[in-house]
C-alpha cells in the first residue's frame, strides 16, 4: 500500500474560548485512494477528537461537506488527495459564511433564501390523485432536469464574488432552483417567484463571473440559469411596460 505523510493546516475556531480563528497543523499518513474527508476522519478518530466538521454520505450527494481546500470550494468527500498539488493541504470553512465552529459554517442565510423563492410546484389548480400523474415528455423533463440536481452544498456561494460583496444577493443555488420550478411543465408559479427574483437582490445582482458554475460538483450551471432568467425578466419588463395588453 502506498502511504504518504501529508500535513494538513486546518482552521480551528471555538467561539466559546477563542476570539479569532487559528490554524492547526496535523500530519496524516494518507492512503493513495483517500479524499480529504478521509484524512479529516483520521484526525478526528486518532489525533484530535475536538476537530469539528459536517459530513454524512461520503458519496457527494448529501451536500454537507463543502469546505475550502487550498482556497478552492470543494466537497471534501470528492477531493482526492492525489489530485491536489504536493505539499501542505490547507482546509478552511466555506468563504462568505460566518463560522460556527472549526469547519462548520452558519447556514441560516441560505436556508432563508431557499425558502423565499418558493421552491415547489405551484399548480394552477390542485390535481386530484385519481387523475394520475401529469404527462411530461422526456424533452420537457430535460428542460429543467439539470437545475434540479443541486445538492445545496453552497460551493457556489463560496465562489461567488458578488455574494461576498452583497450578502443580500439571493445567490446561485437558490436562483437555479427558482429557474428549475419556472421551467417545469407542471408549474404555474413563475409570476409569484418573479416578485422575489426580478428585484435588485435577485438576478440583476449577478455580474456573470461564472465562478459558481465552475465549482459546482453537480454540473447544475447556476450561472446559465441566472442568465436565462435575466433574459426572461427583460422580456417580462417589455411585455409589462410596452405591450401591457399582452400580459397573461
Amino acid at each position, binding site marked *: 500500500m502506498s502511504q504518504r505523510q501529508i500535513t494538513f493546516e486546518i482552521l480551528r475556531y471555538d467561539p466559546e474560548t477563542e476570539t479569532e480563528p487559528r490554524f492547526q497543523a496535523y500530519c496524516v499518513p494518507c492512503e493513495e*485512494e483517500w479524499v480529504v474527508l478521509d484524512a479529516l476522519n483520521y484526525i478526528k478518530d486518532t489525533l484530535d477528537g475536538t476537530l469539528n466538521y459536517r459530513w454524512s454520505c461520503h458519496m457527494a450527494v448529501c451536500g454537507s461537506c463543502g469546505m475550502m481546500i487550498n482556497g478552492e470550494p470543494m466537497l471534501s468527500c470528492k477531493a482526492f488527495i492525489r489530485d491536489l498539488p504536493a505539499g501542505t493541504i490547507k482546509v478552511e470553512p466555506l468563504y462568505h459564511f460566518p463560522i460556527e465552529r472549526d469547519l462548520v459554517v452558519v447556514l441560516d442565510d441560505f436556508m432563508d433564501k431557499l425558502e423565499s423563492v418558493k421552491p415547489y410546484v405551484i399548480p394552477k389548480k390542485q390535481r386530484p390523485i385519481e387523475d394520475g400523474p401529469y404527462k411530461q415528455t422526456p424533452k420537457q423533463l430535460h428542460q429543467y432536469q439539470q437545475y434540479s440536481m443541486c445538492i445545496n452544498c453552497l460551493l457556489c456561494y463560496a465562489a461567488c464574488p458578488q455574494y461576498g460583496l452583497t450578502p443580500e444577493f439571493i445567490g446561485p443555488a437558490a436562483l437555479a432552483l427558482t429557474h428549475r420550478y419556472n421551467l417545469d411543465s407542471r408549474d404555474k408559479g413563475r409570476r409569484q417567484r418573479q416578485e422575489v427574483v426580478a428585484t435588485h437582490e435577485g438576478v440583476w445582482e449577478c455580474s456573470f463571473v461564472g465562478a459558481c458554475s465552475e465549482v459546482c460538483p453537480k454540473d447544475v450551471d447556476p450561472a446559465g440559469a441566472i442568465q436565462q432568467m435575466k433574459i426572461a425578466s427583460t422580456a417580462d419588463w417589455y411585455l409589462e411596460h410596452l405591450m401591457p395588453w399582452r400580459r397573461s
Partner: protein
Amino acid sequence: METIESDVVIVGAGGAGLRAAIALAEADPGLRISLLSKVYPMRSHTCAAEGGAAGVARSDDSMDLHFGDTVGGGDWLCDQDAVEFFINEAPKELTRLEHWGCPWSRETDGSVGVRPFGGMKIKRTWFAADKTGFHLLHTLFQTSLKFESIRRFDEVFTTDLLVSDGRIQGCCAVEMRTGEMKQFLAPAVILCTGGAGRIFPFTTNGAIKTGDGMALAYRAGVPLKDMEFVQYHPTGLPATGILLTEGCRGEGGVLRNKDGYRYLQDYGMGPETPLGEPVLKTMELGPRDRLSQAFWQEQKKGNTVPTKWGDCVLLDMTHLGEARILERLPFVHELAHAYAGVDIVKEAVPIRPVVHYMMGGIHTDINAATPLPGLFAAGECACVSINGANRLGSNSLTELLVFGKRAAESAVKYVRSGTTKVDRAAADQQANAAEARVQALFDRPESTETMTAVRNEMTHAMETGAGIYREEAMLKDTADALAKLRQRQTSIALRDKSKVFNTEFTQLVELGCMLDVAQAVAVSALARKESRGSHQRLDHVERDDETFLKHSMAHYQGEDAPRMDYLDVVITKSRPGVRDYSGAKS
C-alpha cells in the same frame, strides 16, 4: 431550559419524517408541528438512495403480483395485512410525489417510466434516473417549505424521550449550535430516525445512520422487532462501501467471478440469461439475500478477485453501451469513476456485498403505532413489518411515504382522542434528569478508553459474528463482546468541552445507541435457530416455520442483554412456500 410545546413532535427529517410533517400540516393547519433533525433535512440519508421506488404502474402488473413478490421476497415474515395496505397506497403516494414535482424519468409519451428490480416479476420501480432518493428527499423538503405550521429545528439532536404515566410526553434534544438542551413537550411523537448500518464496518449507510431512534424507543420499553435481519446489498464498491444501485442489474448489468463466469447460475438462479436481456426474478435479478450469499460461497471456493480492499466479484455493464449508461445510470458512472477509477462504459467494476438496510426496527402495528401510547414510528427505524426477512429493493422509499403519512394520521387521531394529557411536572423532572446525564458525559474523569477503539471493536464483532452467514459459537462471541463494549463505553471521556457544535459529544451519544442496537441484533440472531431470508445460520440451514414463523421481539433490560419473546406473523392469504428464483419456471 427552554420548553417548546407542540401537538406533534417528529424526530427525523428524512423521507419518512418530511412526509409525516406534510401530512400533519395538510390534515389540520392549526396543528403545532415540531420537526427535529440532527442534520439539515436535505442531508438525511434518503438522499443516497439511487435505484427507485416500487408501486404498481403498468396494466400488466397487479396488486397481487406486488404482494406476492414482497411476501415471497421477505421469506413470509412480512405481516400480510400491512403489505396489502402498503401496496394499495403505493401508487397513490408516488403519484402525489409526482404532483409535488418529483422529476420521475419518463417514457416518450410523457408517462412515468418504470424499471425492473431484483426479485420482481414485473417492472414496477419508478425512478428519477439513478438519483431517486435524492429527488424524493428534495421534493419533499421543498414542498414542506410551503407549510407555515411546520416548525423546523435543524441540527437539534434528540437524546431522550419523555415518558410518564405510561405514555409519551415529548422528548429532549440538544441544539448543536449552542449546546443547550431543549424540552419538547407534546402528546405525540413520531420517530423517523432511519437505520443503523453504522454498527457494521462496511456499509452503504452515511455517518448519521446510528440507530438513535431505535435505541430511544427500546430504552423507553418498546421492543425492537426482527433485528437479526440485516440486508447486505450485493454490489458495493470496495474501500468506501459506496453503493452501485440495483438499477445497474435492472438495466442489464451482469455479475462475473474471476474467470468471467456468471456464477449465479450455480446457486439456484440459473439458467444463464442472454447478455443485455435481463429476465425478471432470476440470475442477476434474483433477490439481494441470495446474491450476497452466492458471493460468500464463491469466495469460499476461491473464485473471487483479490483486491487491496478484500475479495470482490465483477459487475459488468460494458455491453449496455455509453448512451444508455449515461441516460439511465449517470450517477453510477460518476461514482465508479471517482471512487474506483473505473469507466463502466469500458470495464467491469469490482464490487462486493455491503451492509445496507435494517429490516428490523421499532415495533409498530399497521397504523405505525408502537405499544407506548403516543409514540409512533415510520421509515427505516420502524418495523411494521412489510419487509420481513429480506426487503425487496425499492420498497423502502415507498414505505417512507406510505407509513410516514400513516403515522401522521394516527398521531392526529390520537391527539384528538382527548385522552392525552401532558404531565408537566413529570416531564420537567425527566428533562432535568436528561440534562444532568448530558452534563455527566462532560464531567467524566479522564480515562484511557477511546471512542475509536470501542467503535472499531463493535463493528469488527458485528462483521465476524453477525455477517452474511452466522453460527452459534461466533454469535455468542459477538454478543459477549458487545456486552463488554457497552460497559467500556461508560468510561469514555470527552476531550472536547465546548458546547458549540461538539461532534465528539454527539458521536458518544450515537455510539451508545449503536451498541444497544447491535446487541439487540446479535442476541436476536442467536435466538433464531433457523435460516430465513437474510438470516442464514450455518448450524441451522433450513427454514423452520413450525417454531420461527414469528417476529422476534427484543426487550431492553438495562445493562443486561435483552429479553427475547415472539409475536405471530399476520398471514392473510399467502401460506409460506418455496422461494423459487430459477429461470426454469413458467
